[in-house]
Every structure is written in structure tokens, then in C-alpha cells.
């Protein structure tokens, strides 16, 4: 994987993966958020433990039910949530997640419940994420 790696803490490094900074395709989402926002989105994911096994999810909330646009792909011009993937060495990378297209990009229920309970999302956003409408 090609890109710039930064150290987040003793166990975790984050890779700004070149693939997700290049040309968007149907299946490859790219970041519109700058590097600082990408990293802060990942750090919040780590700090708040929005992680399930080797996958994590994040967003940057602006106000009630409003989230910063993080990126796009050829199908979906507005992607507001991110998915992060880690390996066994502690190296992580992320990309703007496309819930409308890929059910596997959706956060696990345990993460959605945390977002709901911590008031990062409301009930209707929870259901819309589950059903690929956001």
C-alpha cells in the first residue's frame, strides 16, 4: 500500500492511502476532506472505540443530523461517513464509506448503537444507514 504513514499512538499507525486520494471510480471512494480532517476523523474513531474487530467507522458531525462531506465516488457525489480498516500490525487506512452501494461498508450495530446513545445520530439516521439510504 502506497502512501504517507503517521503514528497515532504506540500501537497504531495511520496510512494516508494514495488509492483513496486519486481518481474516484464506481468502487473506489476518494477523500475530499483534507489530511487533517481525515486523521482527526480516524483519531476520534480510535479514542471513542468505534471499532469492531479490525474495522472502524467515523464521521465529523457539524450539527444535528448534519455531517461533513468526507468524499465521493462515481456513483455517490456526497459521502459523509468513513470506514477504517486495520491489519494485525496496527497499520490502519480509511476511505469514505458508501452505504448506499455496499452493505459491507455499513457500521456494525454495536457501533450504530453507540452513535445513537452518544447522540451522534438519531433513530432515523440509524435506520437510513442500515437500509443504504444515506
Amino acid at each position: 500500500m502506497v502512501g504517507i504513514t503517521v503514528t497515532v499512538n504506540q500501537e497504531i499507525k495511520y496510512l494516508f492511502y494514495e488509492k483513496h486520494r486519486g481518481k474516484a471510480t464506481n468502487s473506489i471512494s476518494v477523500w475530499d476532506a483534507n489530511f487533517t480532517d481525515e486523521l482527526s476523523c480516524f483519531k476520534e474513531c480510535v479514542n471513542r472505540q468505534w471499532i469492531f474487530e479490525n474495522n472502524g467507522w467515523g464521521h465529523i458531525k457539524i450539527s444535528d443530523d448534519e455531517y461533513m462531506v468526507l468524499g465521493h465516488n462515481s456513483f455517490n457525489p456526497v459521502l459523509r461517513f468513513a470506514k477504517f480498516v486495520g491489519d494485525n500490525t496496527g497499520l490502519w487506512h480509511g476511505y469514505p464509506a458508501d452505504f448506499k452501494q455496499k452493505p459491507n461498508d455499513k457500521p456494525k450495530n454495536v457501533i450504530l448503537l453507540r452513535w445513537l446513545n452518544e447522540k451522534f445520530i438519531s433513530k432515523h439516521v440509524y435506520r437510513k444507514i442500515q437500509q443504504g439510504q444515506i
Partner: protein
Amino acid sequence: MKPSKITLEGDYWDCQIYRGRLYLWTMEGSLKVVDWYSLVKSLEQNISQHLPLSCAFTDGGYLYNYALKNIFYDPEFKKLLQDKFLLITKKDFILDERSIDKYLIGLQDNPFGELQIDSEISSNRVYALTEDALLSATAHRSKGNPVSSKLKNHFSINAFSIKANNYSRFAISAGADGLFEFDALLANERHVRGDQYVKQILNSHSSFADYSFFSIYNSSLVGDSCLAYQRYQEMSPENWSNDIEVQRANIKFEKSIPEDQIFKIKSDQKTVSWGTNEKLYKAVNGGIALVRFNNFKPEETFSETELIKVDSQYGNILCARTAYYGTIVEYDNALVVLLSDFTRFVIEGPITRWRIYPRSYNYENHLHVIKENCVEIYSFNNDYFQDQVEKVLGISYKIRQPFTRKRKVITQNISNSLKFNDKDLRVDNKGHIDALDVDDLPF
């Protein structure tokens, strides 16, 4: 005509109504099963409310009855009935949680153990699409918990939505993984293998889907929508088989028909299309386009496109479905019901979930809308007075004519020998077997 409404307060996630029971999944992880008929009965303050309340909320199909058809030709009868409905549309029926609990049949933990993505009830089983699998459990039990805690895991899938038809088949929309069809009748036969009861129908993107007779209209929010055209191939008497697998295999996928070919509308802008039974719709500039679909005459599969003006926009379309009383479109922040009498009813968001039950007998006029702190149960009663053949908004109701003796015998034989199970269709709320529409039977 405005709809009637019952508001049930509480923090709900999902709901279903089936054979006189209202199923309410709460956010705390429990499932409440409510005696719906007793609850509606309790709202009656005097005898003059009995007819409109029961027609609106517990006997939705009653006024479509063949025997009543002529009555509505008389304007005085029609006005009398409309005035009766007006009596209850003016009232706010609001029940708090304590009042609802008076009609509880059962309260139990959510048997699926998580906030399911989608659910359906068919042939006395409740199905839940969870984040990893399609699960089911026995519903409508008379002893113990109303829904069994013993789960059946049918197969692993990560998907967006499920939709059942009257023949215990389910369309499963799995985003980029495509459209699948699950045969619940086969899945509940012990000897049938998994690859026989779940099949991938399309590999193109699927956000939500609904049945148009045997076919499935596949709607996509990111790509092109299409019709998965399926046909029932009749068995000749010499090839007749009682083997359930042979019979079910007679509904065959033939081809995928892209929306461009159906609607013949060219547009640079991507818009959503959807369909149920004979009505296929597509959002277009300034309104929606309608094409009528016939699954039974290959030479007349699609009608010419008709344009229906709808003059307002509420943002992006997220989902749409069609009932008898109209077509319902979910936008970012509103639910818009385009009624068969050309009026419009708007429910402002945020909306957690909404459901319609066009394939039931008694609740075909319902719209259930879950909001932050309640579920609103709407009843639309405009459609009884519409011409069911000519109407453009909403599925056409095929008025069920009384059986001839011969037809009844045939139907009973079919249902006995083939374990044909309808979703809430065969038994009315008093436990009587109601009229089956033999024209709709696949056999």
C-alpha cells in the same frame, strides 16, 4: 379525504400487523404484541363510530366488497359513508404507553437480539433481516411468548431490505451484491438445500424491491433500476407433480428489463423508479411517469407511458412503495402520499420507518409511520370510491367476486395439497376463510 389516525406513544424501532395483532419492537430491545381489535374497539365512544373505525382500522378490505359496489353508485350512500369517516378523521386518538399495555397479548425480549434492518411476517412466521443473516421465528402463537425465541437462521447475507409476496417468496435487496429471492416455503422443508431456496436473481445494484405479480421490480438509488421479469410456466396435466420443489421451480426468471426500456424516457438526471403489481412509476421532472405492467400477456407487457403532474419536491427520494390507496414516496425529510383521488398527504419528518400492507386483507388501507416518540397509524379511505381499472395512482383492487361452488372446491384442494400460504390473506379477523382470488394463484 383526510386519513384517520391513531397515535401510539413510545420509542419504537419497527412494527408489523398480522392477523389482529400489532407487533411493536421497542428501542429498549423488547417486543410488544398488542391485541389490535380490542385496542380499536376501545376507541369507540358511541355506536356511530363503529362502522368508520372498524372499516378504517380493522376491516380495511370490507368496503371493496363486491356486494357493496352498487351502493357507492348512489351519491347519497357515498356521502353518508364519507361523513362517517369524517367523524373519526376529526378526532385525535392518542394512547400513551400505559393505555397500550392494557391490550398487550405479550411482552418479550426481541427474539432477534438486535435492532433488525427489516422485517416481514408471512405464513405465521416473522422474518428479520439482521446485519449478518435472514432469521425467522414462529409468530402468532397462542401459548407462551407470541413469537418463539427459537430462531431459524436461513442464510448469511448483509443486505438493505426484504419484501414478501403472497406466495411466501421474498425479494432481498443487497446493494452492490444484487437482488436475491428467498423461498420461505422451501426453506421450511427440512430436506431442501440452501441453494434451492435462495437464488441470486440479478447482479445489478438493488436498494429496495417489490413484487409485480411473479416479477420483481428492482429499485436502485445509485444505478439503473430494472424489472426482473419472471413468469409462471404452467404444468401440463401429464407433468403434474405434487412435489413442492417441482411446483415452486415453475416460476422462472426470464430476463432483466432496464427502466429505460420500460418508461422510454431519456434523462441525463438519475431518478428513482419503483413498482408494485401492475403499476410501475418513475420520478421525472415535474411529476411521475406511469407504465402499466401485465405479467400474464407477453405481447402486452407494458402500456404506453402516462405522465402525472406532481408539483412539489422534498429533496432526494429514498424509497417508494405502492398501496391501493396511492403511492408513497419517502424523501429526505418527508413522506408524501400521492392518493388515488389525486390529492396529496404529507407527513413531515424525521421518520424512523414506515410500512404499508397491501398484501393483507384487513390492513391494506394502513400506513404505519414510526417517529421519534410514537408510531402513527394512518388509515386512508379514499380508494373505495375510485374506478379501480382507470386509476393511475395506487394498485388496482381486483374486486373479489363470490366463488362459484366449483371454484371453491378447486381452491380448497389447491391450498390443502400444496401448502399454499398467503400472508394474512386467507383468514379474516373472525377466523373465517375469506375469498381467495383464484386468478392470482400460481397453480
